[in-house]
């Protein structure tokens, strides 16, 4: 290829890439609005209003000390007592009996169990921010979950503890250390992101918790357990490991309850829940409903009333502050939890109040509760005024209206306070109504904030859509050798697919079932374009075609295994299916009877052996036989070319098998091998595989068949990142590409149709490699393969390789499948197939952007459209980059 041709291909691609970057940037800024953070700090000397108090800063110090235990992913139904014992959920039901036993037995002190509602996104860092500052999260924060380097600048109760001279001791998840550097007197933190490690953090917390409590040199202890969350991520809630973990937590909590004294309050809380497969991040009920358990030896409200009571997560902020006599954090939007202030049997949520014991104690505590609400509402009003001063987001007249509501309530309160009445039913009712006024003021402010912080900048969004649409038009003109009219007339199928794909992103239902939609579309293309030609072509093409569609159908849901809890012994059937397909391929290719018979026999033997041998050996057999199949298939695909790469990859694949076997066997035997073995197996093998891939890739750039060489070289890396299910998914990709190449040559399929088929298949395999456009479906554990710690750059690259593996393979192999020009002797790089692939990606991203724009007030926008947009944007950029790289290198 001449130098001039090279640049004339590359420059338009770079321009398109830049247009995409710009378009996505504008759209993203318009779509994900940000909340301004206000750096003001509440100070002890200047309370918003003065409340009678003798010991604390803004209010009475009801408790001198506090213990806050965070059990990551403690779902509400893990904590409550279930009466019926069913088989379903037996791994997590009723394994935390301590909460129920405390609530049922008033002699042990008073305990409350609340349903603790989290604001989505339900990721740990966002939740910690919410539970310490009392602010609402913005959606965009979710992507910062892994970037914990920036500390929180907003006011929080942790900072207030530090300012007011409390001795705070922290132990557990090191996210806290990043968020609140240097605020802790003693800090025992442990790295948190290795989800495979179930015990290090928890054992660390347990080691320090009771000794610290007995030591006495503390005011507040915060402990953050990660085990439950990690069991969820690794195995899902329905796994024996969950029982073990919950029982351990139960044990810790009961020890702590035995230790604490009358002056101490205990909070045990979950930051979020988990879905049925153990992930979190979204907005479903299972993810947002965490548990909050509050315990103290002082008398508070009747326990039974708080059962099933719903509390917002930010409510814990003013509650902790006022109980410990601290200033309420400046930006807090939560309201105090009333049950913790009333030390009588009184349900303030029943209206009208019946049979009220008219004791002075009741009146006093109710009065105290209104004092606290008054204090918290006044701080909220200060914040609201400050915010509207700094930003025009909140209209002033709304602020004035709300302030009037508050002032009315305040005037009423002053009047009641001055009356100094003897306690009676009348007085209780008065204070009760007053309290409700504060609550309603609070709720309207919260409603206003939520509404305003979820508005969109439509101009920016439209500009973003316009830029991506511009790139689509630009791509039209870049297609070489075909006039615009010809493109439309001659490639009706391609346009049909473009249009169907465009509208398939219009409804959330199609996005949810995208996998099946893609299957339907890809088969449509095959039936329209390839079937009529293949019928003229004889038997072998026919068999190849049927094999191809069967393989494509296999890629939807034959293996049910979830990425992290993939069951080896059950996957024998998968291996068997692949072996059968390989057998047919070898037969068609070589026609050797003996070889085929050997394969059939060995595949039957694998299936049989798997059922005979004990688990460990069955796993080893299964992995080994799968890897052999993979190597044979790769050899078949390369057809004798790129020999060095094949040898290097085969070596790596054998190591991948050893790595998987070691991991599985370790868990089953429940014994950890020595540190040295661990290091070799867990660190050295993946690192060797990565470097082997890189070297082989560089090597393959020097020779012919570069695309093939690169894919063969990168194959083991993708396999180890995608985990054991990739034995099945990645080999199916290889088989499908092999068949497709054969069929495409025989059916003389046009470039555009090949691009369409490859594009639809790449989306199909995005799902089949275990991904989905949802944040909770990201396979975070892939970022740790080969590393004990989370490195932002390397982990990010590994995550991208893991998530977009199918797109990367399909894009690199596009010229391999569509290589007719090479047959004609023209070695020029086929431009159109890549450009039309890119065109389809652009159209689908543009469509997502457009429909997300229209659906921005849709019920499902945060659950489906926004994550879908994020993933589509990422796919667009990844495809751009891979295409540019393959242009400039190959």
């Amino acid at each position, binding site marked *: 290829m001449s130098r001039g041709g090279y640049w004339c291909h590359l420059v338009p691609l770079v321009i398109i890439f830049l247009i995409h970057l710009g378009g996505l940037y504008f759209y993203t800024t318009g779509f994900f609005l940000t909340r301004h953070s206000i750096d003001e700090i509440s100070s002890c000397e200047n309370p918003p209003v003065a409340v009678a108090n003798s010991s604390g800063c803004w209010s009475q110090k009801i408790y001198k000390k506090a213990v806050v235990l965070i059990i990551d992913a403690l779902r509400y139904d893990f904590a409550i007592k279930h009466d019926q014992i069913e088989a379903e959920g037996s791994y997590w039901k009723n394994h935390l009996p301590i909460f129920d036993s405390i609530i049922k037995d008033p002699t042990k002190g008073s305990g409350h169990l609340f349903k603790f509602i989290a604001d989505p996104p339900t990721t740990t860092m966002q939740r910690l921010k919410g539970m310490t500052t009392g602010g609402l999260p913005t959606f965009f924060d979710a992507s910062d979950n892994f970037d914990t380097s920036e500390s929180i600048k907003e006011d929080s109760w942790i900072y207030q503890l530090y300012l007011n001279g409390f001795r705070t001791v922290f132990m557990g998840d090191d996210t806290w250390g990043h968020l609140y550097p240097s605020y802790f007197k003693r800090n025992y933190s442990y790295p948190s992101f290795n989800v495979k490690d179930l015990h290090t953090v928890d054992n660390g917390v347990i080691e320090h918790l009771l000794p610290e409590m007995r030591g006495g040199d503390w005011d507040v202890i915060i402990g953050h357990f990660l085990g439950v969350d990690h069991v969820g991520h690794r195995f899902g809630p329905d796994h024996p490991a969950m029982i073990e973990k919950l029982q351990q937590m139960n044990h810790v909590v009961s020890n702590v309850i035995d230790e604490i004294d009358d002056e101490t309050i205990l909070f045990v809380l979950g930051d979020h829940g988990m879905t049925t497969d153990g992930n979190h991040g979204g907005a479903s009920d299972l993810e947002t409903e965490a548990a909050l358990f509050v315990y103290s030896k002082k008398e508070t409200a009747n326990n039974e009333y708080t059962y099933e009571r719903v509390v917002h997560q930010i409510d814990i902020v003013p509650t902790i502050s006022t109980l410990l006599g601290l200033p309420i954090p400046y930006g807090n939007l939560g309201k105090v939890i009333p049950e913790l202030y009333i030390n009588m049997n009184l349900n303030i949520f029943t209206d009208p109040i019946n049979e009220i014991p008219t004791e002075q104690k009741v009146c006093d505590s109710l009065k105290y509760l209104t004092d606290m609400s008054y204090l918290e509402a006044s701080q909220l009003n200060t914040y609201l005024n400050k915010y509207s001063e700094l930003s025009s987001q909140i209209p002033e007249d709304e602020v004035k209206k709300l302030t009037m509501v508050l002032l009315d309530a305040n005037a009423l309160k002053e009047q009641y306070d001055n009356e100094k009445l003897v306690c009676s039913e009348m007085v209780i009712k008065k204070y009760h109504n007053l309290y409700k006024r504060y609550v309603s003021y609070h709720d309207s402010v919260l409603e206003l904030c939520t509404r305003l912080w979820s508005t969109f900048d439509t101009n920016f969004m439209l500009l973003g859509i316009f830029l991506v649409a511009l790139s689509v038009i630009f791509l039209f003109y870049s297609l070489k050798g075909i006039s615009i009219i010809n493109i439309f007339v001659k490639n009706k199928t391609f346009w049909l697919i473009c249009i169907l794909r465009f509208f398939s992103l219009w*409804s959330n239902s199609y996005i949810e079932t995208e996998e099946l939609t893609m299957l339907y579309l890809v088969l449509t293309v095959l039936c329209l374009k390839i079937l*009529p030609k293949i019928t*003229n072509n004889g038997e072998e093409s026919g068999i190849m075609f049927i094999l191809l*569609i069967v393989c494509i159908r296999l890629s939807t849901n034959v293996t049910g295994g979830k990425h992290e809890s993939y069951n080896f012994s059950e996957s024998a059937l998968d291996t068997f299916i692949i072996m059968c397909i390989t057998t047919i391929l070898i037969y068609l290719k070589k026609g050797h009877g003996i070889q085929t018979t050997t394969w059939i026999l060995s595949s039957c033997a694998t299936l049989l052996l798997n059922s005979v041998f004990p688990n460990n050996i069955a796993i080893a057999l299964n992995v080994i036989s799968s890897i052999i199949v993979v190597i044979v298939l790769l050899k078949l695909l390369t057809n004798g070319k790129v020999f060095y790469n094949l040898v290097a990859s085969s070596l790596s694949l054998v190591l991948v098998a050893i790595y998987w076997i070691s991991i599985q066997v370790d868990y089953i035997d429940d014994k950890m091998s020595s540190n040295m073995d661990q290091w070799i197996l867990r660190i050295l093998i993946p690192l060797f595989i990565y470097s082997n891939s890189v070297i082989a890739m560089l090597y393959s750039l020097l020779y012919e068949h570069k695309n093939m060489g690169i894919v063969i070289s990168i194959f083991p890396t993708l396999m180890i990142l995608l985990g054991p299910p990739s034995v099945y998914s990645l080999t199916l990709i290889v088989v499908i590409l092999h068949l497709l190449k054969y069929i495409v040559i025989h059916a003389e399929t046009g470039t555009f149709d090949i691009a369409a088929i490859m594009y639809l298949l790449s989306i199909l395999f995005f799902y089949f490699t275990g991904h989905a456009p949802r944040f909770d479906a990201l396979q975070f554990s892939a970022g740790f393969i080969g590393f004990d710690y989370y490195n932002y750059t390397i982990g990010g690259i590994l995550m991208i390789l893991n998530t977009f593996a199918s797109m990367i393979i399909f894009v690199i192999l596009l010229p391999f499948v569509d290589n007719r020009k090479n047959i004609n002797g023209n070695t020029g790089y086929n431009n159109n197939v890549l450009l039309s692939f890119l065109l389809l990606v652009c159209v689908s991203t543009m469509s997502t952007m457009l429909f997300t724009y229209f659906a921005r007030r849709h019920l499902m926008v945060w659950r489906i459209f926004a994550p879908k947009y994020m993933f589509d944007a990422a796919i667009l950029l990844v495809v751009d980059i891979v295409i540019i790289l393959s242009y400039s290198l190959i």
Partner: protein
Amino acid sequence: MEGIYNTPLEDPEWTEIYIEWMIGLVLASNVGFCWLVQNRHHNRKLHVAEILVITILGFTVGTLLFQFIAICFGAPLLTNVSRTLHFGALLSAFSFLSPCLFMGFDTNQWIRVYANHSPKNKLERFLYYTGYGSVIGAWLGAIPIPLDSDRPYQVWPVSCVYGATGGYILGVFIWFISLGGFRKDHKD
């Protein structure tokens, strides 16, 4: 993932009865017509026994073929087998059985009519239009299945069955129109 195909039918019996009646109707008319007219392909009137054998064979093969195709397009393999089977049988009656009866099992003729889009006479055009009509109708019928408006017609295979029926009727209609235009070209 196949969940959308497994929504329970509002009125399973009615759907099945509808499909079975429809199949019966098409089968009867095909067999009857084949028995009445002289079969061009065979150059003679087929014997009743021959017709029955071809019907049973063609219908079974067609049913299995369309069931396979439906499964490839995403219908469930192991659940709701009866529904998929009914759908396959309907499409078989609409578009597979009649060519079996009127063109025999001659692959070349099938390829000429269907793959190369060149039906030569009235009968072949009828087979061509109704065959493509019902298949395209069934294909279009799958489009509303994933939508979440929970209507009874969205349940697999109801919409596809309606689509196939509509497509078949439309095919007959187009054939009628085409009769006038093509009469002079191929006088058979």
